[in-house]
């Protein structure tokens, strides 16, 4: 289920005051929608100032067609040397744009001439600087011809060149010193306000159990105005769906958009402050007064979904289930986007490996909304881990019937069928290949593995081969993958390929341990580093 906030200029919704001029603000759910908004607005050669706890920069390998279009053999060869070529895909680059690589696309499309990543300030400057440095070095090591690191300083300032264009990584407290003269594209991810340490064990997420602000939107906006940064186009990304910003903080997008456009009324200040106070460690000690405060505000603003949803969560923490359920119902009546798979911390807790905490979160939410089929996803995972295949099949089918057509459900249903040797059912359950994104890459790989195994069991050799080859293009290189290919080519009596894949499998098995410890190292050009 996608959130309702697509790339729509909020300036139409929020009347700009005299001070805001012709400022356009796009509030988007997935950050890659910012790229489409810039493209639609026709920006070229701009400086992008990106306030985010994540750099959002990953490489996109060329398609075979794009590679063949190169004007000379030498250019083709140099592209090959610089990119992870085995990640070939039939999909176009546009189709492969996701929230992890849209800035790469924007630079390639000449929308962005200079990329300034402003990362959060952290009291432990040494560790924060080390985390940023290793992020940049990982990018540089992946494509040394395309990204050169030039300068690093102990104060956390980094400079590099992507496709010959400038990249700066600056801590939040220092960006005022690097404000350019010209108008920039301003891009803000809301997780910037709640993810402070880029080296913490929760990273790339915030502390999902107790998220708190290290910077308030009011401080951010006043510092922005004081910096003299000139901007006319702002993109704000929620990143709720991927779990980076908890849904309880969804109000933050509206608060920031309003603050950028104009100063808030007293009533709005009061409402946003009450909501933000819920995430302060000091106010967490007295939940009862917070409940009273929210109830008073709801009396004045009965249709405010953010107030009602946060009140529901507070009451739930205090074990007032009927009260929480009533508030939750009213919240989703006012804004149905509060009834998503990500409206609690469970999925993010699972992603960071805190299974017991995730289970508690799912159980709590089930008390509020027992009919939400997405909450049964966790149950399905538990049945799989307990190897209760038959029950998992029943539940998987039930979920599909209830409209939860998620790749995880299909994958787990097929896996259960495969274990019970119900191959035809497994084949049907897998359905079409899930579309690609940064966070579905794992599902896609899992899907291809399952499909290949089912195809082999059904003696559909060509389908199995196609799936294994796709896995290679996804960057999978494991001994078991090459062993499977060798097995299939042996059955096809193509001894040439069988021998080749068997040799690859053996090489990977032997060198696997060594390669695990070996990583290409990026180099810095300047002696100042």
């Amino acid at each position, binding site marked *: 289920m996608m959130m309702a906030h697509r790339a729509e200029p909020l300036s139409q919704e929020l009347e700009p005051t005299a001070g805001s001029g012709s400022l356009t603000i796009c509030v988007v759910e997935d950050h890659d929608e910012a790229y489409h908004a810039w493209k639609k607005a026709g920006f070229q050669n701009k400086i992008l100032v990106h306030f985010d706890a994540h750099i959002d920069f990953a490489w996109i390998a060329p398609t075979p067609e794009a*590679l*063949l279009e190169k004007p000379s053999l030498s250019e083709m060869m140099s592209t*090959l040397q610089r990119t992870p070529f085995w990640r070939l895909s039939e999909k176009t680059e546009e189709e492969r744009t996701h929230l992890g690589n849209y800035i790469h696309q924007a630079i390639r499309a000449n929308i962005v001439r200079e990329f300034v990543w402003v990362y959060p300030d952290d009291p432990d400057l040494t560790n924060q600087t080390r985390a940023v440095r290793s992020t940049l070095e990982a990018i540089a090591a992946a494509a040394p011809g395309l990204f050169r690191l030039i300068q690093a300083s102990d104060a956390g300032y980094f400079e590099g060149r992507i496709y010959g264009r400038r990249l700066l990584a600056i801590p939040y407290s220092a960006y005022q010193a690097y404000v350019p003269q010209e108008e920039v594209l301003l891009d803000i991810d809301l997780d910037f306000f709640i993810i402070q340490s880029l080296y913490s064990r929760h990273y790339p997420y915030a502390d999902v159990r107790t998220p708190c602000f290290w910077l308030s939107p009011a401080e951010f906006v006043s510092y922005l105005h004081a910096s003299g940064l000139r901007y006319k186009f702002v993109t704000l990304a929620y990143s709720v769906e991927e779990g980076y910003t908890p849904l309880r903080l969804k109000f933050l997008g509206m608060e920031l958009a309003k603050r950028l456009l104009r100063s808030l009324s007293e009533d709005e200040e009061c409402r946003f402050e009450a909501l933000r106070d819920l995430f302060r460690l000091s106010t967490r000690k007295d939940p009862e007064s917070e409940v009273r405060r929210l109830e008073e505000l709801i009396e004045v603003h009965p249709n405010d979904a953010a107030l009602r949803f946060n009140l529901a969560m507070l009451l739930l923490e205090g074990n007032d289930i009927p009260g929480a359920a009533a508030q939750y119902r009213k919240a989703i009546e006012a804004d149905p986007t509060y009834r998503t798979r990500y409206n609690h911390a469970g999925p993010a807790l699972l992603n960071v490996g805190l299974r017991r905490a995730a289970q508690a979160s799912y159980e709590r939410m089930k008390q509020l909304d027992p009919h939400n089929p997405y909450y049964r996803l966790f149950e399905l995972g538990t049945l799989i881990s307990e190897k209760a295949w038959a029950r998992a099949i029943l539940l998987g089918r039930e979920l599909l019937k209830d409209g939860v057509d998620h790749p995880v459900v299909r994958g787990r249903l097929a896996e259960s069928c495969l274990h019970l040797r119900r191959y035809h059912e497994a084949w049907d359950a897998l359905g079409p290949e899930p579309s690609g994104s940064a966070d579905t890459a794992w599902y896609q790989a899992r899907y291809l593995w399952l499909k290949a195994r089912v195809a082999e069991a059904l003696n559909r050799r060509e389908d199995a081969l196609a799936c294994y*080859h796709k896995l290679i293009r996804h960057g999978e290189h494991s001994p078991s993958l090459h062993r499977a290919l060798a097995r299939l080519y042996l059955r096809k009596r193509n001894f*040439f390929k069988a021998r080749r894949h068997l040799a690859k499998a053996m090489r990977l098995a032997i060198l696997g341990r060594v390669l695990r410890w070996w990583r290409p190292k990026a180099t810095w050009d300047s002696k100042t580093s």
Partner: protein
Amino acid sequence: MGFKDLLVRSVPKASERYERAPHVKWRFLEGRAVLIDTNEGLFMHLNDVASCIWQGLDGQKSVDQIISDLDNAFDAPAHRLRKDLLRFLRRLSLMELIRRVESSRES
């Protein structure tokens, strides 16, 4: 398919016709064929003779016709050209970069 079929398949016959596999993307660049095997993620560029052979693998020409084209284009003994061509076709076939045109399609 038995072991005999495998041996026969690996040595192309003069009357057989071959075509390029659909998963191979290619183009001519600077007078030479550049190939990308999208299944395996392999990139290769061929020399002049191999490029000439690759161009002839359109599913229309027989192996004999390709040899006669080569004979016209290159100053080399015919037996040498035949030997090189058959070895090259065998290798391409084993790498699944080309496939034999079936007899039903021939007629």
